[in-house]
């Protein structure tokens, strides 16, 4: 972890293994796969689910402050608990949950480097026992709007010529993927990307062999040549805000960029917005809706 701007927000699997019984540490698994936790998880880990736990059940939004307080209380998390997030898919939703805990002002948050993949690869134990913790009383702070943007701010970002990072795959960025044969429409009416956005897929920030984050030097080489530099205000987006949480974490905590925001509306909002500008770099077939 040497050389990262804020290494205190990242822990290795060894550290987690040494803190499994630490009452001040709560492990939280946050996966894309809804039932992966049930197949086995790190001993003592609690589960959150991005869709059923972390989002409002009615409107498209995160859970509100009161519901967040209820969630933390239920998981036995108090303000001084160190919450360590890990999950599948290179920690996409672990970063998403980390982001939400920051949004509501939880002070001590960490990501387990390499996520579930590395833990399993190292042959470390997984158990099916679901732990229960004594309820805590949790008081969150008001949402931190310095790390979140809505569509109007994205429009202002375009007009100001400030950087937007589209962290989706190149095929999603160009607009090709959304109308591949037999593939669903992925919740958006249109394919392409937000005008001016540069495409730096989230996956470029991790080592394929063990899902850990790349070195600071490699990360700087990834972002800086494309104009994503620490002196600028950056907005990251993807499809629903999970992959961009990953990039947000990389930029803010591993590289130390002071002004990085996540557009959680992402493509499933922008690609459906009437009259929103879109850039598309694949040829659209005549008569085929994108």
């Amino acid at each position: 972890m040497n050389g990262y701007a804020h290494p205190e927000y990242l822990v290795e699997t060894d550290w987690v293994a040494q803190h499994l019984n630490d009452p001040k540490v709560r492990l939280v698994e946050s996966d894309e796969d809804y039932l992966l936790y049930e197949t086995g998880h790190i001993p003592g880990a609690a589960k959150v689910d991005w869709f059923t736990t972390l989002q409002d059940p009615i409107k498209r939004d995160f859970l509100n402050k009161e519901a967040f307080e209820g969630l933390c209380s239920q998981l036995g998390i108090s303000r001084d608990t160190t919450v360590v997030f890990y999950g599948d898919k290179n920690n996409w939703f672990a970063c998403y949950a980390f982001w939400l805990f920051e949004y509501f002002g939880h002070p001590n948050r960490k990501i387990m480097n390499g996520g579930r993949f590395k833990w399993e690869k190292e042959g470390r134990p997984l158990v099916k026992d679901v732990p229960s913790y004594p309820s805590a009383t949790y008081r969150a702070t008001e949402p931190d709007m310095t790390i979140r943007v809505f569509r109007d701010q994205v429009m202002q970002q375009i007009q100001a010529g400030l950087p937007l990072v589209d962290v989706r795959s190149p095929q999603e960025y160009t607009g090709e993927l959304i109308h591949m044969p037999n593939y669903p429409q992925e919740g958006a009416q249109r394919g392409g990307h937000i005008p001016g956005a540069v495409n730096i897929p989230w996956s470029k920030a991790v080592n394929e062999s063990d899902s850990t984050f790349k070195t600071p030097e490699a990360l700087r080489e990834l972002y800086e040549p494309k104009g994503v530099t620490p002196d600028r205000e950056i907005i990251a987006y993807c499809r629903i805000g999970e992959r961009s949480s990953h990039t947000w974490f990389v930029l803010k905590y591993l590289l130390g960029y002071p002004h990085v925001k996540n557009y959680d509306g992402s493509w499933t909002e922008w690609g459906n917005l009437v009259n929103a500008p879109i850039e598309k770099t694949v040829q659209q077939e005549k008569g085929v809706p994108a």
Partner: protein
Amino acid sequence: MSDFDRQAQLEFILDHYQNPRNHGEMADADVHLEGGLPGCSDLVTMYLKFEGDRVAEVSFVGEGCTISQAAASAMTEQIKGMSAEEIADLDFEFVSDLLGEEIVQTRPRCATLSLETLKAAIQEHRKNQIRGKI
């Protein structure tokens, strides 16, 4: 749903995920089709062999989340012997009944991926039949 029912449903899904039925490619299939959800990288390819208008054999291969793969496995056990028309009529309720409504609601698109792929494969088979007749 009681805790007991939910646990039984969970075990049913996890069993299909960890011990998939009718899993593997089918070299002599009448039709096969791949479907996928690029956002969460769930992929399923369905293989079908017909006797007349009815499904004689079905198999699948795929990769992805617990629910998408368990749904494919569980579905293959249900559709053997069904006619193309009967399969075309299957809907969300069929998947909910199979896997449990509560769990299906958490990831509806993963849960219905194999059914949608299956229905697309049936359409493809019908088109192939029409082309063959012309």
